[in-house]
C-alpha cells in the first residue's frame, strides 16, 4: 500500500553506483571527445594518442556532482510531496555532443539520478533537418505520511478488516466505543503514488515546406490515495481507506505541416488510451458482520473505467492579398471519446438479489467538434483590428440506460427507476477588437465579446448569453515606461431557469410527478452559479517603469465583482482583488537586488436554507424561509520574495541570498438560522440554530536560500548552497482527524504535516 520509497541502504548504494558510473562515463566521454587543440595545449603526446581513437566530436555542457544533507522534518509528506531531497550523493548532467562541423548532435540530460524525481532526456538529430528524443522521468506525489489504517489489503482491489473485528463491533453493547478500541490498532500507511513518464518523439523537416512530427508518451501511476465508501442511507457510516492506484495512459500524436510563404497548413491526429488495472475497490464495513437486506458486510466501488479519445485537427493560416496586412487563421477539430467497460453487478450483498442490468456496458460515445476562426487586419498604420469566432460542441451520443431497479450503497434494494442522463452542450465565443494608436504615448483598445451556451434539456438553463465591452488604455509616457489599464463589463442572462429539469430527465414520469408532489427537489430559488444570471465588472492595471538605468519597477493589480443578480439561493456574489509590485535595482555593477510582493483577496457569498425532514414519510419535511442561512468565505494571501546577488570577486565568486514568504488565511462565517423549524418528531440536531465562525485556516511557507558559487577555472565551478524551508498549515478539517473521532466513521488521519527542514549542498560542476 505504501508507494515505493528508495531510502534503504541497498538502494542507496545502487543509486550511488549509478551516479559514479554516469559521472565517470560523462567525464571520460567529454575528455575523449574534447577538441584536440585543447588537449594539445596540455600535452602534445597525449593528444597524439587520444587522437588515434577519439571520435571526431565536440563536447559542451556540464556535469554536476555533489553531496546533499537534510535535517529536520525531512520525512514529512508535504516536504516530499513532489521531490526527493534525501541525503546522499546527487548529480546531474547536461552534455551536448556535436560533430566537428556542428551539423549533428546528441544531447544527454539527467537530473537527480537514482532518486524518486529523476529525469533523463536523450536527443539526437541534425540541425534544421530532423530530431529524435527519448525521455524518462519519475515524480513522487506524497499525500500524507501520517495516515493510519486498520484495513489489510490481500489484493489491490480488496480491503479487509482483521479477523473478528466486525463481529466484535457488531456484538458490542456500544459499537461506537468498540470501533474506537479496534481502530487504536490502526497501522501507519503512506498515502501517495509514483508517476513515471516515458516517451519518444521525432521531428523531420522533409524539405523547406514540409515537416513531419510524431510523439508517444506513457504515464504510469502506482500507489495509494484516500478514498471513502459509504454504508447506509445519508447519515450512515463512511469509511476512508488508502485505495490503490495502478493505471496508465498512452498518448500518441502524429502530424504534418506545410508552409509556403505566408501559408501554413497543418494536420494532426492525437490518441489517448487510459487503462485502469483496477476495476473496483471492495471494502469491509466495520459495523456489520454479515449481509442482510438492510445492511452490508462490505461494499464495492467502481473505479474509473478504461477509456480512449481520438482527435483529428486541421489548421490553416494565411495572409490574405489586400492593400493592407490581413491574416486569417482557422482551426477545425473533431474528437471521439469512447468507453465501454463492463458494468459491475449492482451489489455484492449476498442477501440482496442483484437486479438485472439493462446492458453489459455503457457503450459510451462522445463527439466533440471545434471550429476557430481568427482574422486580424491593419487597415491603417495606427489601427489594428481583430475578430474571432469559436464554437466548441460536446455531443454525448451515448444511449441513456434505464435502471428499473438498483441497490443503494449495497444495503437497500430500490425499485424507483433511474435513467442515465446524457449532457450535451455547445459553447460559442465571438469578439471584435479595435486598437488605435492615438500617439506614440497613447493607445486605446475597444472590444466587444460574446459567449453563448446551449445546453441539453437536463440542465436548468438551455440558452445562456454573456456579452459586454472591453476598454483598455495603454500609456507610454517614456519608451521604457508603460502603464496599462482596462475595464470589462459582462452581462449574463439565461432564457429561464428550470429547477426540475434534471429530475425530469432522470426519473420516469410517474416517479417524477410523485417527487414534485412531495416537494423533495432542489430549492426553487436556487440558481447554480454556472448557469445563473450574472453581472461582472473587472478592472485591471499594470505597468513597467524604468527609473534611470538601474531600477525597474513592475506594477500589477486587478479588481473583480460578480453579482448573481437573480440568485435568491446559491452563490450570490463573489469579489476579488489583487495588487503587487516587482522591482529590480542594481545597487552596484556587482550587486543586484530583486523584490516582489503580491496581495490577493477573495470573497464568496452564498445563501441557503436548511430543509429538515423526519426520516419517516417524505411528506413530513419542512421547507420554511425561517430556516434560511447565509455564508461568507473570505481568503487573503500575502506573497513576497526577494533576492540579492553579489559578484564578490569579479569573474570568480558569486553570492546569492533569496527569501520567499507566503501567508494564506481563509475565514468562513455562517449566519445563524433565525428560527429553527423542524419536522414534527424530528430528532434534534445540536448544530441547528447556531451561528458558526469557523476556525481560520492558515498556511505559511518560508523558503530561505543562500549560495556561494566559486569559479575555480573556466571548467570547474564549486557551489555551496543552504536552503531552509518552514511550512505550517492549520486546517481544522484535517488536523488530527481520526482514525476514530467518535460515532461510526473511520478516517485516515491523513493530515498535511508541518515541517521545518534544513538542506545543505556542496557540489562541483565541470563545464566542457
Amino acid at each position, binding site marked *: 500500500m505504501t508507494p515505493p520509497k528508495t531510502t534503504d541502504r541497498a538502494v542507496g548504494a545502487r543509486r550511488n553506483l549509478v551516479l559514479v558510473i554516469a559521472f565517470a562515463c560523462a567525464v571520460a566521454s567529454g575528455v575523449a571527445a574534447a577538441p584536440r587543440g585543447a588537449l594539445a595545449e596540455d600535452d602534445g603526446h597525449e593528444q597524439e594518442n587520444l587522437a588515434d581513437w577519439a571520435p571526431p566530436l565536440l563536447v559542451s555542457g556540464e556535469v554536476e556532482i555533489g553531496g546533499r544533507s537534510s535535517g529536520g522534518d525531512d520525512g514529512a509528506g508535504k516536504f516530499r510531496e513532489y521531490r526527493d531531497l534525501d541525503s546522499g550523493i546527487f548529480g546531474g548532467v547536461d552534455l551536448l555532443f556535436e560533430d566537428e562541423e556542428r551539423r549533428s548532435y546528441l544531447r544527454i540530460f539527467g537530473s*537527480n539520478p537514482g532518486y524518486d524525481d529523476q529525469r533523463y532526456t536523450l536527443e539526437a538529430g541534425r540541425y534544421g533537418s530532423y530530431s529524435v528524443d527519448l525521455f524518462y522521468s519519475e515524480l513522487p506525489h506524497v499525500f500524507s505520511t501520517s495516515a493510519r489504517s486498520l484495513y489489510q489489503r490481500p489484493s489491490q482491489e480488496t480491503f479487509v478488516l482483521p479477523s473478528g473485528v466486525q463481529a466484535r463491533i457488531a456484538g458490542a453493547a456500544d459499537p461506537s466505543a468498540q470501533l474506537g478500541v479496534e481502530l487504536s490498532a490502526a497501522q501507519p500507511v503512506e498515502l501517495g503514488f509514483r508517476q513515471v513518464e516515458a516517451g519518444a518523439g521525432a521531428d523531420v523537416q522533409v524539405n523547406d515546406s514540409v515537416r513531419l512530427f510524431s510523439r508517444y508518451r506513457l504515464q504510469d501511476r502506482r500507489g495509494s490515495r484516500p478514498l471513502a465508501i459509504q454504508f447506509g442511507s445519508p447519515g450512515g457510516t463512511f469509511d476512508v481507506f488508502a485505495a490503490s492506484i495502478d493505471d496508465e495512459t498512452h498518448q500518441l500524436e502524429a502530424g504534418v505541416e506545410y508552409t509556403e510563404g505566408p501559408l501554413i497548413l497543418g494536420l494532426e491526429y492525437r490518441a489517448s488510451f487510459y487503462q485502469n488495472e483496477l476495476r473496483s475497490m471492495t471494502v469491509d464495513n466495520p459495523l456489520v458482520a454479515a449481509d442482510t437486506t438492510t445492511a452490508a458486510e462490505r461494499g464495492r466501488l467502481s473505479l474509473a473505467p478504461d477509456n480512449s479519445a481520438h482527435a483529428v485537427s486541421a489548421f490553416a493560416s494565411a495572409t490574405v492579398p489586400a492593400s493592407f496586412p490581413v491574416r486569417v487563421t482557422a482551426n477545425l477539430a473533431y474528437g471521439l471519446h469512447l468507453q465501454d467497460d463492463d*458494468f459491475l453487478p449492482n451489489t455484492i450483498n449476498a442477501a440482496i438479489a442483484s437486479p438485472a442490468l439493462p446492458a453489459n456496458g455503457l457503450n459510451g460515445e462522445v463527439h466533440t467538434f471545434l471550429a476557430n476562426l481568427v482574422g486580424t487586419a491593419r487597415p491603417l498604420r495606427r489601427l489594428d483590428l481583430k475578430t474571432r469566432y469559436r464554437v466548441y460542441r460536446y455531443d454525448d451520443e451515448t444511449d441513456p440506460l434505464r435502471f428499473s431497479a438498483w441497490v443503494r450503497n449495497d444495503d437497500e434494494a430500490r425499485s424507483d427507476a433511474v435513467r442515465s442522463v446524457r449532457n450535451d452542450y455547445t459553447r460559442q465565443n465571438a469578439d471584435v477588437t479595435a486598437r488605435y494608436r492615438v500617439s506614440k504615448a497613447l493607445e486605446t483598445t475597444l472590444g466587444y465579446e460574446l459567449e453563448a451556451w446551449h445546453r441539453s434539456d437536463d440542465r436548468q438553463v438551455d440558452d445562456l448569453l454573456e456579452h459586454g465591452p472591453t476598454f483598455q488604455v495603454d500609456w507610454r509616457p517614456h519608451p521604457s515606461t508603460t502603464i496599462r489599464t482596462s475595464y470589462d463589463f459582462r452581462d449574463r442572462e439565461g432564457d429561464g431557469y428550470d429547477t426540475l429539469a434534471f429530475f425530469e430527465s432522470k426519473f420516469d414520469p410517474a416517479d417524477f410527478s410523485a417527487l414534485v408532489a412531495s416537494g423533495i427537489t432542489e430549492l426553487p430559488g436556487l440558481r*447554480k*452559479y454556472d448557469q445563473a444570471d450574472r453581472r461582472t465588472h473587472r478592472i485591471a492595471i499594470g505597468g513597467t517603469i524604468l527609473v534611470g538605468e538601474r531600477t525597474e519597477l513592475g506594477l500589477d493589480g486587478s479588481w473583480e465583482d460578480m453579482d448573481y443578480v437573480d440568485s435568491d439561493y*446559491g452563490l450570490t456574489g463573489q469579489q476579488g482583488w489583487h495588487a503587487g509590485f516587482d522591482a529590480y535595482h542594481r545597487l552596484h*555593477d556587482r550587486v543586484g537586488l530583486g523584490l516582489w510582493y503580491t496581495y490577493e483577496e477573495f470573497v464568496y457569498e452564498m445563501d441557503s436554507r*436548511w430543509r429538515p425532514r423526519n426520516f419517516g414519510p417524505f411528506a413530513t419535511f419542512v421547507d420554511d424561509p425561517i430556516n434560511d442561512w447565509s*455564508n461568507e468565505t473570505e481568503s487573503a494571501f500575502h506573497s513576497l520574495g526577494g533576492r540579492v546577488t553579489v559578484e564578490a570577486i569579479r569573474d570568480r565568486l558569486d553570492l546569492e541570498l533569496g527569501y520567499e514568504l507566503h501567508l494564506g488565511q481563509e475565514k468562513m462565517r455562517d449566519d445563524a438560522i433565525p428560527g429553527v423549524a423542524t419536522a414534527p418528531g424530528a430528532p434534534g440536531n445540536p448544530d441547528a440554530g447556531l451561528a*458558526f465562525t469557523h476556525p481560520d485556516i492558515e498556511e505559511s511557507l518560508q523558503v530561505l536560500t543562500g549560495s556561494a558559487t566559486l569559479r575555480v577555472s573556466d571548467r570547474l565551478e564549486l557551489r555551496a548552497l543552504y536552503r531552509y524551508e518552514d511550512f505550517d498549515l492549520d486546517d481544522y478539517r484535517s488536523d488530527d482527524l481520526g482514525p476514530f473521532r467518535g460515532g461510526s466513521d473511520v478516517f485516515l488521519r491523513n493530515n498535511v504535516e508541518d515541517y521545518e527542514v534544513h538542506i545543505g549542498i556542496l557540489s562541483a560542476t565541470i563545464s566542457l
Partner: protein
Amino acid sequence: MLCPKRMPLQVEAWVGSIGLAVLVLVGPAIASAQSTSGYVGSEACTTCHADASHAYDRTVHARVLNEAVARTERAARGCEACHGPGLTHVQSAGKGEPHEDWIAFTGDTVGDTDEGGLAADRIERENAVCLSCHDHSRVGLWSGSPHAMNDVGCTTCHSTKNPASRRHLLTAADQTTGCGGCHPAARAQQLRNRHMPVRSGPGGAGGEGFMNCSSCHNPHGTVTESLVDANSVNESCYECHAEKRGPFLWEHAPVNESCTNCHVPHGSIRPNMLRVAGPRLCQTCHIQSLHPSQNRGPTDRFSVGQNCQHCHIMVHGSNHPSGNFLTR
C-alpha cells in the same frame, strides 16, 4: 523580474567603445570586400560584437544559421539572417542611418519615422523576423493572440544571444520565473500549499519543475481562453487526468463543461485545489430537501475531511450501475 545576470554597465561601456572604434577603422574595408547587396557577413559582426558572438555560439541558432549547414540562402547569412543587411551599419560604425531592412533587436525605434516611432511597429518588425522561420502551427495563432495584442514581442521572453534558460532561449532561468514577471498573481498562487509541481529551483536543490507554464499554456496563441493549449480546458486537464474523461454512466454535468467550475489550477489553500472549500462549494449548487443542507459546524462529521465526498466520492462521474448518486 528578478532579472537574469546582466553584463556590468562598465563592461558594456568599454565593449561598446572599443567596438565603435574598431567599426570606424575596419568597417569601410570590410564593406568594400562584400557584395553590394548590403550584406557583410557574420565575421564582420564579430569584429565588434565578440562577447555577443561568444554567447550566441552556444545556441541552436548559431548551428542553423551558418553557411556550412544552411538549408536556405537566408540561413547562410548568419547574423544578417535576422538582423538584415549590415553594410550601412558597418560603414557608419553603428551610428549612421540604418538600412531600411536593418533590425537591431535592441528595443529602440530604429527605422521609424516621425509619423510612427511606435513601439508596436518595432515589435511587429522584430516579431516578423522570428515568425518568418518559426512559421509552424505552434505559433500559427500568434496573430491576434492576447500577447500579440498587448505588444509582447518575441524578445520579451526569448533571447537569441544571451538566454538565461537551458532550453527555449528564455530571458529568465525558467518559465515560472519568466511568466511570473508579468503574471505575479499566478506566480504567487503556486506558493499555496495545494499546487501543481511547478515551483522552480535548481535541480536536486529544492525545486519541483516537473511541470511548467507551457505544460498547460501556449503563450504563442491557442484556440481556447487563457491560452490553454488544447481544444478546451478539460481536454488540457485530461492530458494528465485521463481517468476523469469518461464518458461515465452517471455524469456530473458541470464536470464535462469545465474543470475550473470547481478547481483553481494555479494553487489553492483548500484540498484538491478547490475554488471554495467543501461542503460550501457543493452547497452553492445543491439545496435538496432530501439532503443535509444546514450550516453545519466545524466539528460536524459532514464538514471535516473530505466532507461531501465521504459519500459522493465519485464526484467526477460513476460507472457503477447503482452509482446514480455518485456514491459507488
